[in-house]
């Protein structure tokens, strides 16, 4: 007796109505509804210049979110990304500024990326070899890096003027490829690269395998340690890249750069449908959630509510997340998957 042939791949794909129930769809719908509602009230919202600004502002967050999505998919977390960005920004400013060290832009860029990778790798080593929970490692790293940044910048009167930095860095702010701003180009490249990693390479599947069932992954011969080390190092590298995009947009390098970034990015990844306990989540969801959450500031501005409305921005952001979480819970309960968080 022979085993029945496997059904074709298309038959295994979930039916359309189930795919519509995915988080990405709802985030996209909410984003579309927000854009439509605001531009109905104020057509200026849809102008090319505003959209361009919003995308450029969202670029660094998007880049970091790509890395953090993978970290959270493996069941770990990295809350040191904000402090790391501050530290790398200080290094970038000090080395490339003509007033201080005056290195060529290429050297500073390489140094920043290498330092980012090194810190990410250290996080990864402490988590894998040291067996310290990742939230503890990155919490400690977050404080230590903030201290290092403040100490480092106190040697430069607490701030470094970005306009004195190497002119090549300014291109990252002003420059454009095919009239798409350079920052957006880099973010798109990072998204494409991460998507290639996740969907085309075996490593991508392994990241999900480790996150969804560590025991099964171990029995299948996967090294949990090596894969986690990889995602932490990748996140460090991407934070370096995000710093390169972020710093030229600013006037001054200060220790406050990157503060609160970790909370924003983790929030975006979670709103985008990634499960905090690992094994579930997509890049697409994270990117859409970044666009949604980073547009709130602009939305409030364009709604021209009143002076006091801007004070409520954070409250609205928090309420958004709670609403998303509640909606997700209700949707899951309807499908009888309450226990699978």
């Amino acid at each position, binding site marked *: 007796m022979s085993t029945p042939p496997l059904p074709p791949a298309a038959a295994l794909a979930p039916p359309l109505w189930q795919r519509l129930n995915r988080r990405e769809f709802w985030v996209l719908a909410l984003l579309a509804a927000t854009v439509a509602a605001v531009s109905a009230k104020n057509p200026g919202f849809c102008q090319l210049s505003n959209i361009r600004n919003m995308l450029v502002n969202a670029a660094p967050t998007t880049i970091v979110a790509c890395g953090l999505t993978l970290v959270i998919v493996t069941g770990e*977390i990295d809350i040191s990304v904000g402090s790391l960005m501050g530290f790398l920004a200080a290094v970038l400013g000090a080395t490339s500024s003509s007033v201080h060290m005056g290195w060529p832009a290429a050297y500073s860029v390489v140094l920043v990326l290498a330092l980012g990778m090194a810190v990410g790798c250290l996080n990864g080593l*402490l988590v894998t070899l*040291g*067996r*310290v*929970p990742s*939230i*503890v*490692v990155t*919490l*400690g*790293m*977050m*404080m*230590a*890096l*903030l*201290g*290092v940044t*403040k*100490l480092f910048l*106190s040697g430069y009167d607490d701030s470094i003027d970005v306009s004195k930095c190497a002119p090549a860095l300014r291109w990252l702010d002003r420059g454009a490829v095919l009239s798409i701003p350079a920052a957006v180009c880099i973010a798109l490249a990072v998204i494409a690269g991460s998507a290639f990693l996740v969907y085309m390479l075996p490593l991508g599947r392994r990241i999900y395998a480790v996150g969804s069932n*560590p*025991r099964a992954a*171990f029995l299948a011969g996967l090294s*949990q340690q090596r894969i986690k080390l990889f995602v932490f190092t990748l996140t460090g590298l991407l934070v370096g890249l995000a710093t390169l995009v972020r710093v030229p947009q600013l006037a001054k390098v200060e220790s406050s750069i990157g503060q609160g970034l970790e*909370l924003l990015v*983790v*929030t975006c990844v*979670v709103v985008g449908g990634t499960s*905090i*306990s690992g094994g579930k989540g997509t890049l697409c969801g994270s990117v859409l959630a970044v666009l949604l959450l980073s547009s709130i500031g602009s939305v409030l501005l364009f709604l021209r509510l009143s002076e*006091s409305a801007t*004070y*409520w*921005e*954070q*409250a*609205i*952001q*928090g*309420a958004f*997340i*709670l609403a998303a*979480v*509640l909606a997700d*819970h209700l949707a899951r309960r309807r499908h009888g998957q*309450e226990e699978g*968080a």
Partner: protein
Amino acid sequence: MTVPPGDTATRSRRCHGILAVRGLLDFPYWHELVLVMLLAALMLWARWQAPDFVTWETQLDLSTHIWELALMCLPMTLIIITAGIDLSVGSIMALSAVILGTAYLRWDVPIGLAAVLALLTGAAAGALNGVFVAWVRVHPLIVTLATLAAYYGTAVGISHGMPLSNYPESFRLIGGGSLCGLPIAGLLCAAAALFSAVVLSQTAFGQALYAIGHNETAVRFSGISVARIKLLLYTCSGLAAGLSALLFVGRRNTANTDIGTGISLDVITAVVLGGTSIFGGRGRILGTLLGIALIHETREFVSWHWSKAELNLIVIGALLIVSVLLNSLLSARRRLREY
């Protein structure tokens, strides 16, 4: 039974090696012992480097702001023992302080009533966290991350980011006053610590918390209402944050939205440094108190001696990682049994 990845046979052989080592590793107060030794070493060094630092008066002077942190650490220890976390305590503190200030200064409510209102706000904010964690069953990290932004945002929205200052003398007594030479806030804190320690170690409720941290499903099946316990814990956490806000406002005579910024992470650092496992099921109030003391003394000594506040962050970050790393290496055997 699941086995952690890695060569279990070699590891257990190494761990079971010598009986003396085995007994040593089984000693239940390892972490507390390490903390006491670190604290003693620090104080001896401080005594040698800066004799002025290790005197009763200096220590009392420097301790004014630690009580708020300590008060929030107590419920946080219980929450982390149940494998939960509460990132929103700093924001609840800001919200309570703003409610207190707005009620007293803008709405002309008597100060006693305003204080009660602030405490109720704290408890209600904590209860909302609890409802999401216990009934909606969302991961506590996500819930409190969201409410961290929401409560802080509400505080900013209500106060428009303006500081609210000037409170009556009688109110300022709870934050800055002293009784028989001891700060009132400190006595309050000691009473709360004693209460939580007794509840955690001597009652069935305390045992249930450890059990929830180890295996929540098993606890639910044994007929204990996990949801009710969690709701209570998060409400207590919010209440403690509200009380901390009262102490803070009483001490500084001003309420603004930034009083709680970053304090959640300080609280979690102290609890984790005190030996409470972030995965739940392990931890003690004694450890938490030692963790707070160690962080506090390190911080104060570093600023006292080098007058560089930046060094604090580096030292405490490193201390957190190293202490947990040491604990994880030392307790390899215990973890093996846990699996």
